[in-house]
């Protein structure tokens, strides 16, 4: 049976993890490959790097850390943040990423999704959707790191992105992100019910029960979190134990193998 995935997310700027992590005292103050290897050893099913480098020169550094990470952690790696073209996606894949997530550039140029899927296969194309609740009970797509409104309906955009070739959706609730108020399971349910590709839940994780809710109530196939892992509030093993106790299929055991 296909396992529900638990995915730590690392925000990377100019080659460093920028959010504080509980490993800071142990290794090189947030070297991404070091942290990635640590999470892999702790049972992470996959890793996501989001490049938040403000300057273009950060990109070369990103490719270098993607390659170092791919050579350290033998689990899948998705890289997102600022990818705007087929050529940029090619560079990130060749550096060692398995999937690339598109966000702002896909909203600006939806055909980019189709071009990337045609070139690399839809399984390599993740579309990241940052969504915010509207007063009429729907969700609007935001871009540029949640700064800009688009007027796009998030559920409609999700279905459109999949039609164009997205093989997976990374759905972040901007309302919940960083709040530790739990995932927006209504948003997740609305999107997972509208598409047949896997949906990764993001934004709002506070504890293991939230991961269970994202899957059971939200229909998510995978659950992503950053700060609760970085700050050592919960381990991946604790999250997986709660998911298993709730009857969800998770990958256990290989950590200690």
């Amino acid at each position: 049976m296909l396992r529900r995935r638990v995915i730590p997310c690392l925000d990377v700027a100019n080659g460093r993890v920028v959010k504080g992590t509980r490993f800071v005292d142990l290794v090189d103050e947030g070297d991404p490959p070091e942290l990635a290897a640590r999470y892999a050893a702790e049972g992470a099913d996959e890793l996501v790097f989001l490049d938040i480098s403000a300057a273009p020169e950060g990109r070369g550094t990103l490719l270098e850390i993607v390659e170092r990470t791919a050579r350290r952690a033998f689990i899948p790696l998705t890289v997102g943040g600022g990818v705007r073209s087929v050529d940029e996606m090619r560079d990130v894949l060749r550096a060692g990423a398995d999937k690339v997530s598109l966000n702002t550039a896909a909203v600006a140029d939806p055909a980019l999704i189709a071009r990337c899927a045609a070139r690399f296969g839809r399984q390599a194309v993740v579309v990241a959707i940052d969504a915010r609740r509207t007063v009429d009970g729907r969700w609007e797509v935001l871009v540029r790191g949640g700064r800009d409104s688009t007027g796009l309906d998030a559920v409609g955009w999700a279905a459109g992105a999949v039609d164009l070739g997205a093989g997976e959706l990374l759905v972040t609730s901007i309302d919940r992100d960083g709040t530790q108020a739990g995932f927006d399971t209504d948003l997740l349910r609305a999107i997972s019910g509208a598409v047949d590709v896997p949906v990764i839940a993001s934004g709002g994780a506070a504890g293991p029960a939230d991961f269970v809710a994202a899957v059971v109530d939200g229909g998510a196939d995978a659950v992503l979190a950053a700060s609760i892992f970085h700050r050592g509030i919960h381990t991946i093993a604790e999250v997986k134990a709660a998911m298993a106790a709730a009857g969800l299929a998770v990958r256990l055991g290989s950590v200690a193998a």
Partner: protein
Amino acid sequence: MTGNGAAGGASGEGANAGRANGDGVPGPLVAVVDYGAGNLVSIDQALTTVGARVALVRSADDLAVTAADALVVPGVGAARPAMERLTDAGLVEPISRWIAAGRPYLGVCLGLQLLFEGSDEDRAVTLGVLAGRTAKLDGAPTLPHIGWNQVERRRPHPLFAGIAPAADFYFVHSYAGSLDANDSEAALADTTHGRSFVSAIAVDQLFGVQFHPERSGTDGLRLLANFVGIVRSPDGSSRSAARAADDVRAGVRA
């Protein structure tokens, strides 16, 4: 990816090349076919980690000069563009001859699917080494099939030595091969997503896995170490590859 072909770059003669295994002798030379723009860093690193030397091949000439001990065909995506790129590189005939000669081959994901006769995805005609076709995973709750899933073995085999009988491996695909009845003995393991499909095949020195061992943690490395061991000694009893895998597992734990 910093490798630049059979004889140059990081994969050919760079930091990883010539790494000795636990016995201090160079590992077998594994030619990895590079015919697209995908991630080859992972398979390069994983094979190197378990003691192989890796050479990227992009043309028939590359393959001819490497004197490789084994051939690995990785890849993701659709069959037709992959076959077109292999054709453009002049690699279809050399790969077919390699397999026909009974030399060690490991197909990963698309590299397994290409062994079948054709793909329903885009009507591509593929290598036809195995009787059967590649078809969509109909009835699956989600597609692509992305994530860790159980690989349930039909029979013991050295490729899976030291790996639990229904261990999890990482999958990323929407299509999978179905063996015709007269080739069904090739099936080594099955996985279920919507429907059951063959997730590993083994016929003598011909191997294929639908999952990605290079992205499947310690069990994936163990499988690649087993493959390298089989290449080294056809009875699959190589101590050195198994020792390399143990080193890796110790390193992952440390």
